[in-house]
């Protein structure tokens, strides 16, 4: 797994090329700007050349991007798979061409990646569940009816999130699940689904929504029923809209996963690999399909509530301008400690 010599004539003797394969633009906005920006920054800091591609949710596209990157002569490939199958195909392709792979954010089960750098997605789900149970709208209630709106079933991470929050919520005393539907990471679907759910269960107290964009849809429906703020709504990704809703009190919390937690680690790791080292990871994760112990770097997520809502902005994860675009929101922002220039 070392690339001390490279046969590629176009590459300099010491390979500094790192390829990054990102999955899509819909499952989370992070893949569009947060990750590319942070990765690029880290690459520059580590004097590496990074090639960052986004597969637009198509496994075939990712496959062809992988081939193109290998053709470029990258020595390390960061893969955020769309699914484990295509991820594995890419990793074996890379292996065939003697390129080291790192699973970035998503574990390729059954794959051959040398390292796994991520947030712990089951943990994310568990945090969501715990935070929802602590929301003021439901805290201390003896009987709580809630519904789930999951991410796309085609996305393994969505399955992991659901596994996390369901394991927590099912153990909450007095909580009953009134319904579970998938929102497909799509706000329109989420809105349709939740409209019907609310029609059926007008007395529900909490909505376990997998991310912020879908939470927005849920809040839309609640608003039309004057219920916004009276029902606990969860979220994830700390998007600008999500933070707005948290400040407004219509959303109870969101999950903040600073990209730096993954990008910094992954790029540093890549630099070490390219310079010929074989770093030892602090932990391992067991691949559920083949019981392989994958050396892992796992970061912890942060739950964002009204109390610490300014954190993503002060970190630079979101800009104040995008969180507070209108005068009304500027006021709300300053009340919550976000300074707009």
């Amino acid at each position, binding site marked *: 797994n070392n690339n001390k010599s490279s046969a590629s004539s176009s590459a300099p003797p010491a390979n500094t090329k790192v390829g990054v394969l990102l999955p899509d633009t*819909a499952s989370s*906005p992070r893949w569009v700007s947060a990750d590319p920006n942070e990765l690029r920054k880290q690459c520059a800091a580590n004097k590496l050349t990074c090639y960052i591609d986004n597969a637009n949710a198509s496994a075939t596209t990712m496959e062809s991007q992988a081939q193109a990157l290998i053709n470029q002569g990258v020595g390390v490939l960061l893969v955020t798979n769309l699914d484990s199958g295509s991820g594995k195909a890419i990793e074996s392709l890379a292996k065939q061409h003697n390129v080291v792979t790192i699973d970035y954010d998503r574990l390729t089960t059954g794959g051959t990646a040398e390292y796994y750098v991520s947030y712990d997605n089951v943990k994310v789900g568990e945090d969501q569940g715990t935070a929802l149970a602590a929301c003021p709208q439901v805290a201390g209630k003896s009987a709580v009816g809630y519904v789930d709106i999951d991410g796309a079933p085609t996305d393994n991470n969505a399955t992991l999130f659901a596994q996390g929050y369901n394991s927590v919520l099912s153990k909450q005393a007095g909580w009953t699940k009134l319904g579970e*539907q998938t929102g497909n990471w799509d706000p*329109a679907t989420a*809105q349709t689904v939740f409209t019907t759910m609310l029609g059926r269960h007008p007395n529900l107290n909490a909505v376990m929504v997998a991310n912020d964009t879908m939470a927005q849809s849920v809040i*839309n429906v609640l*608003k039309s029923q004057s219920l916004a703020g009276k029902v606990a709504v969860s979220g994830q990704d700390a*998007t600008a809209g999500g933070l707005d809703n948290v400040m407004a009190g219509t959303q109870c919390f969101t999950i903040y996963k600073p990209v730096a937690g993954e990008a910094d680690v992954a790029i540093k790791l890549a630099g070490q690999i390219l310079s010929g080292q074989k770093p030892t990871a602090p932990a391992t994760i067991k691949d559920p399909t083949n019981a392989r112990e994958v050396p892992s770097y796992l970061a912890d997520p942060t739950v964002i509530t009204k109390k610490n809502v300014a954190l993503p902005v002060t970190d630079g994860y979101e800009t104040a301008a995008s969180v507070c*675009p209108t005068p*009304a929101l500027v006021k709300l922002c300053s009340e919550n400690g976000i300074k707009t220039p």
Partner: protein
Amino acid sequence: MTAKTEPAVAEETPVRGPGALRVYIREYVARLRGGELGSAPAIVGLVVITAFFAIVHQGFLSAYNLEALVIQAAPIIVMAMGLVFVLLLGEIDLSAGTTGGLCSAIMAVLLLRHGQSWWVGVLGGLVAGLVIGFVMGWLRARAGIPSFVITLATFLAFQGLTLILIGGQGSVILPTGSPLISLENSFVPLWLGWTLLGIFVAGYAAIKLIDARGRQQSGLAATPIAVIVAKVIGVALLGSAFTYEMGLNRNLITNAFFSSKAQGEPWAVVLLVLLFVIWHFTLSRTRYGRHVYAVGGNEEAARRAGVVVSRIRISVFVICSGMAAISGVVAASLLQSVQSNAGAGNTLLLAVGAAVIGGTSLFGGRGRMIDAVLGGLVVAVIINGMSDLIQGSNSSGYEWVVTGAVLLLAAGFDAVVRHGRST
């Protein structure tokens, strides 16, 4: 064998009085049996699936759900209305969905990043739609590129542009309280709703009566007054039923503390009716509409008759993209935000499917505005009805399967009624 007594000659002398009604009904039945079914199959299909969901899904016909259904159907219907024009020419616009997405993104950016007022944003989005339509129409009509390829290219490109515009935020949330949001989320005051209904019914009756008098004065066979009265009463009853049900308070929870009410029809209904009237009128009563049908039916005949075919062709793309822009705005209003993948996915297929289920042909020359409305309602009923039918985190698999099956059933029903109409 009684038919023997009726020779196949022209029956030009109009009959009046009660005889006219009998003639009218006889002709109508003969036309029905001859296969000229108009909107009947789509209506029957709509009633059947509505009944189906009303049975399996209690509360499906509640005022609450009816409103949800209407506001969910609005963007589909608006887009389908525009698509009818393109389909009438035997063309396709694969990019209508993403055009809508792009235009709503432009609107959102104007609103939020440039601080413009809502109508500047809407105007910007609409103008963008018109320009897009013009360029695509020009490429089709003048450069001669097949519309499937042009709009496949723009389908991809606009998805990219929307993503670039909305960027890494994933979605842009429209300012709370903006009139834009009201379109799908606020309601027409009750008195205004009833007034508008009155105006609509009166207008309908007036047009029908003026038509009939004109024909009578020209010595042509006119629709009997009895039929007109029946039709007007029918429209008035349907409208009243809808307005009445929409007038009920739909708030699910009311108690001593909360007394806000949700009642009245959504403004989107007014928009839909307005757009329908405009385009229906354009298609059925203007030279332009006649020319659209002619070009769709036989382009060469239209060209020889002096119709400027390329201008018609460009115009339908302009209308389609303009309506797509409006549809995008309505969708944004529904979601109170614009996503970076707005208009992608199945948006377009469902809208085209709506037009086709309504009775519009993909080969050009056959289609009406009402097709878009009825087909759009069918699609919306299916989606709304399905959204809660199957539970579980992997429910979407089953839901897709059942959605497909129901769609097929609705269309199959339609086909059986039409008895082997070929599209």
